[in-house]
């Protein structure tokens, strides 16, 4: 029983990072309705730049955070300009293939920035874990969970309460009509992309600060985990992204405990496949799968 609860706690904590990754994904998918495979790799570019100033100039944590987010945003805009802005709205698959090509490019760029396989990443909080009875809680895990909840609340606020969010929802609903009432569609979409990358950058920083190391595999890992969490939670739903991340984290923690690391990933993919087939709109999505997006919810 103690193991079960401890596994669930660990799962929730790891799940918070998946939820954060899914949050950025949801923004891009909700606005563009297209799959950006380069999402993880562009976060990785930010992380590598952050690591670079940490390793070269022993920069402090604030500088590393700023550099990571800035790098992720720049890489995100680069992806948007090349793979999404020039493609017609109907050519979603061409965008996906392009973003895959950019993925390989960004991965190579990361290796050129820092050629060794593994680099240290500055830790977030060192110190003994909190003890609650028989259970252990790591402080950096708690900070990540708090960040996940705060950021998702912030994103929810921006999308549903701000003028910019209103413009975005108008674009999602009908891009032509949004253009006619004077919304600058291209700039808004680019800003949404940049915002999604910034959220991704923060997620990437937190995950790497807990792992305390960064490798070129991080990009693919981030794309896949964010994607799975987003799909399980419900496409285009902001609370769904966080919830999907938590569910994925808990399921993974339990299968890791019972079956080992190789089966853990298998279980994650089978969960995703089953979820998509049985309930394509995800846990919190309510509309039919193809139509689900941020804008279609009552607001």
């Amino acid at each position, binding site marked *: 029983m103690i193991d079960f609860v401890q596994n669930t706690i660990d799962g929730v904590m790891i799940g918070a990072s998946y939820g954060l990754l899914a949050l950025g994904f949801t923004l891009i*998918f909700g606005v563009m*309705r*297209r*799959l950006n*495979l380069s999402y993880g790799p562009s976060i990785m570019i930010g992380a590598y730049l952050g690591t670079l100033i940490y390793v070269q100039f022993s920069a402090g944590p604030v500088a590393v955070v700023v550099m990571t987010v800035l790098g992720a945003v720049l890489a995100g805009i680069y992806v948007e300009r*090349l*793979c999404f802005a*020039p*493609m*017609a709205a109907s*050519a*979603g*698959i*061409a965008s*996906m*293939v*392009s973003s*895959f*090509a*950019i*993925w*390989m*490019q*960004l*991965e*190579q*760029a990361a*290796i*050129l920035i820092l050629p060794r396989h593994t680099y240290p990443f500055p830790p977030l909080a060192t110190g003994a874990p909190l003890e609650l009875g028989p259970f252990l809680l790591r402080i950096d895990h708690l900070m990540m969970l708090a960040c996940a909840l705060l950021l998702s609340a912030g994103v929810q606020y921006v999308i549903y309460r701000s003028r910019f969010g209103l413009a975005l929802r108008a674009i999602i609903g009908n891009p032509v009509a949004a253009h006619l009432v004077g919304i600058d569609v291209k700039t808004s979409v680019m800003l949404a992309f940049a915002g999604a990358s910034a959220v991704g950058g923060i997620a990437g920083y937190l995950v790497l600060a807990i792992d305390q190391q960064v490798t070129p595999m991080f990009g*693919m890992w981030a794309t*896949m985990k964010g*994607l*799975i969490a987003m*799909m399980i939670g419900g*496409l285009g739903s902001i609370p769904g992204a966080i919830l999907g991340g938590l569910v994925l984290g808990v399921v993974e923690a339990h299968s890791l405990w019972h079956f080992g690391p*190789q*089966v853990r*990933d*298998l279980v994650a*993919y*089978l969960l*995703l*496949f089953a979820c*998509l*087939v049985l309930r*394509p709109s995800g846990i919190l999505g309510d509309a039919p*799968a*193809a139509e689900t997006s941020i804008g279609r919810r009552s607001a």
Partner: protein
Amino acid sequence: MDFYLGLIQIIGVHTLLGLSAYCVLHTGQVSLAQAGFFAVGAYVAGMLTVLAHWPIVPALLVAGVVAGSLACAVGFPALRVKGLMLVVATAAFGEAVRLFFFNFNYQLERGGFHIGPHGGEGFRQIRYFPEYGWSTLEVAAFIWVVVVLTMAALWWMDRSRAGAVLRAVGEDEVAAQSSGINVTVVKVSAMTVGGVIAGIGGGIFAHYTTHIEHIQFGIVLATFAVAYPILGGLSNVFGTLIAVIFIQGFLIEGLRFMGDWRNLLFGGLIVLAMNVRPRGLIDAGTITLVKRLVFRSKERASA
């Protein structure tokens, strides 16, 4: 010379992989499960020739049938979802297949050696071609016979009623349904045919590399599989072939001298190609152009 033969073999196998995705793409479905079917074909064919001492051709056929049946079985639930949800669902399935082979152990002892798939270490010593004394040239010729047969079959299918039905479903599902086409049957059949082709391709791949492991069949291979027909264009089978030659021959082998910088250029060139020709390198316009050129030269000859 062996280098070029090796390249010709790679291009052949990747063309089969691309054609398997081409089939599914015709119905407007993007499947990232093709690498999974390719993996199933590779393992099944390898186990049949190594463990059961089957000849290569029946082993490939069985590999195709097994991969095709799996594709059919996956097609029914997976095709309930559309568009990007299908992309993700099939990607998840493909990764699940890969991780299955990561954990798959089935070893027999033969003359003091353990042979057969061995989890993370992969499946070594698929030595059918060297054991029976096939030269590299003969292997390359064998691969291309299969490729040409597949292309001919798909070319014929494109021009038959079946091709028209596939395109109808791909262009507008509702219109196709209202004119009496059973959309589910069409989609699942396309998925099955794609699975068969991917399975045969995988079987060949296992035999010319002689060593397969799970990591080769990941999401990267799956994306390559759909990238070929999308880059090449869906108007006919030669688009896929040309895209494979462009990516494998030019971008990967031709630019090898650029070392680490190759992948940077690789990404840029594919994005450029997709921006300049979003409907593929060979689209309907290219065919009209070629036809017009041929027609004009004939006219001139007769004049």
